[in-house]
């Protein structure tokens, strides 16, 4: 007599074991994915924090061989470039997002959504080439304008996306209530809908700004870089990421230390912004999930 019972039992033991192993591998994958983050984070902190001092934020870069000096011009440059980018990127991103959610009765809104997704996938170096052709060549020199424009372009998809998502979360009753009171649609959109969603949109903007602050590739041949205080927006301007790049590939230890300090500043910015975004959106996500 065939012992069906033990056959089934053995078989199920094998399946259960396989299930255990696969689930363990998934846990392992999660640990493996986080490992580089933890490594990079602590490595940058250890390397960077020790070379970080007040001078780093207040002094100009020093030539090779001289100790000291900082990245003050690059820090100011990054702030200016991101500011220029924001002036261009934030309004475009928000208004396009409003169009997609509030007036999306037609095919065109879907096309815009698709195009925004495609724009977010265009390599940042390509955006750099675009800004070069559009601004650097006609002006005949590298400039902060070109760099800021490139950063602004890179911010648009993130902001459009988050505006869409956040506007979708605004209950429809709110719009109907406002319209029932006789408030025009555009006023409803700006004063009621946008305002209700503003918290989420602001976190999205923060995220886009933090990303833009860390972008290197589009600045290499738009704002280029220099080692002095930039006096005007139509001349080359230093930025933290480009400065890190130039220092990192140099053979000098002193410059490497400066680059690590810069990397630490950038990574701290990313961490703080991510934390703010997380805390601000936590409730919304847990509700929708």
């Amino acid at each position, binding site marked *: 007599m065939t012992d069906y019972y033990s056959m089934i039992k053995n078989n199920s033991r094998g*399946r259960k074991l396989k*299930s*255990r192993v696969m*689930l363990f591998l*998934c846990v392992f*994958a*999660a640990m*493996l*994915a*986080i490992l580089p983050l933890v*490594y*990079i*984070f602590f*490595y*940058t902190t250890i390397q960077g924090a020790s070379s970080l001092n007040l001078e780093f934020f207040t002094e100009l870069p020093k030539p090779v061989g001289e100790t000291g000096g900082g990245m003050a011009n690059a820090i100011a440059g990054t702030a200016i470039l991101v500011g220029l980018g924001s002036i261009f990127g934030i309004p*475009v991103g928000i*208004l396009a997002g*409003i*169009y997609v959610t509030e*007036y999306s009765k037609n095919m*065109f809104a879907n096309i815009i959504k*698709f195009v925004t*997704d*495609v*724009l977010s*996938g*265009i*390599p*940042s*170096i*390509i*955006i750099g*080439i*675009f800004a*070069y*052709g*559009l601004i650097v060549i006609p002006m005949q020199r590298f400039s902060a304008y070109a760099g800021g424009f490139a950063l602004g372009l890179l911010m*648009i998809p993130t902001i459009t996306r988050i505006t869409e998502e956040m506007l979708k979360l605004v209950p429809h009753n709110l719009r109907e209530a406002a319209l029932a009171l*006789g408030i025009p*649609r*555009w006023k409803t959109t700006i004063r009621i809908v946008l305002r209700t969603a503003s918290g989420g949109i602001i976190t999205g903007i923060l*995220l886009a700004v933090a*990303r833009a*602050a*860390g972008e*290197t*590739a589009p600045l*290499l041949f738009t704002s*280029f870089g220099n080692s002095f205080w930039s006096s005007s927006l139509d001349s080359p301007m230093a930025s933290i*990421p480009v400065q*890190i*790049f130039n220092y*990192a*590939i140099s053979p000098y230890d002193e410059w*490497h230390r400066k680059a690590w300090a810069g*990397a630490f500043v950038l*990574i701290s910015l*990313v*961490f703080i*912004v991510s934390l703010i975004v997380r805390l601000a959106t936590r409730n919304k996500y847990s509700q929708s999930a």
Partner: protein
Amino acid sequence: MPDIEAKERKIIKSTRKLSDILFENATFLFALLIAAIVIYIFYEMFMDSAESREKFGFGFITSLNWDSVRGEYGAMTFIYGTVVSSVIALIIALPVSIGVAVFLTEIANSITRSAVSFLIEILAAIPSIIFGFWGIYVLAPFMRTVIQPSVQSVFGFIPIFGGSGAGFGLLTAGIILAIMITPIITAITRDVLKAIPVSQREAAYALGATKWEAIKMALLNAKSGILGATVLGLGRAVGETMAVTMVIGNKAQIKESLFEPAYSMASVIANEFAEASGTLHISALIEVGLILFGVTFIINSFARLLIYSFTKKAQTR
């Protein structure tokens, strides 16, 4: 009296209409601007690469030459470096990302889930320059002193593991890229898995399936969405610039070994554009950019369409 009311209503209506039309068209214009920019990027790069396109024709894609002294340019070595490093990245990142996504949706409790997804979000936000910097001083030496000798002692007879790299090469670039694209593949796979109805898994359990068997079924049902996530990750890997530039070795050559240095499309633009020697050089670099743009455009469109159609299907199910 009713006459006045009607008049009033008419006035209100007409002013409302005008401002509404203005506002709607303003938002429409900005939306249109995004589309126009994407088209214009293509147009500008197409025009600016004219000199190179006319001189080299289709031979540009297949030629191995890249010589700014003689003015001969071809993109094959860069295409090779981009493709191979991206494929390595996908081979490493895909299983890990699926594992993490399964962990997040099926295994972790809510505290672990939010902690792990937070960490992965940060990983996605770290600037690529920092990955590259870390790659130069941590990963590349590790590859040179640990990975390369140990792999070569066992598989050294296989050509792709031969050679004598210094830690900078295709494999190092692929590993850095894998780390960088894991967050995006994970995030989309997680969303896709969430879209699979719980009732399907419950049905599997009711039939006596183990937990993994139920998950496997969900994964199989989600495969077009996961494919979309994978292709999107590929698009990111292909276009990634700084991190690759810093670890791939920047040598325009095609060698059998993955440990040998190579060059990628994005890297050659990053390295040579600002110091290009003459208009033909610039034009050739822009043509490389045009190819890169075309490839990432196709990859991203394909990925997005896959993801859209999957989420639509999942919603109607």
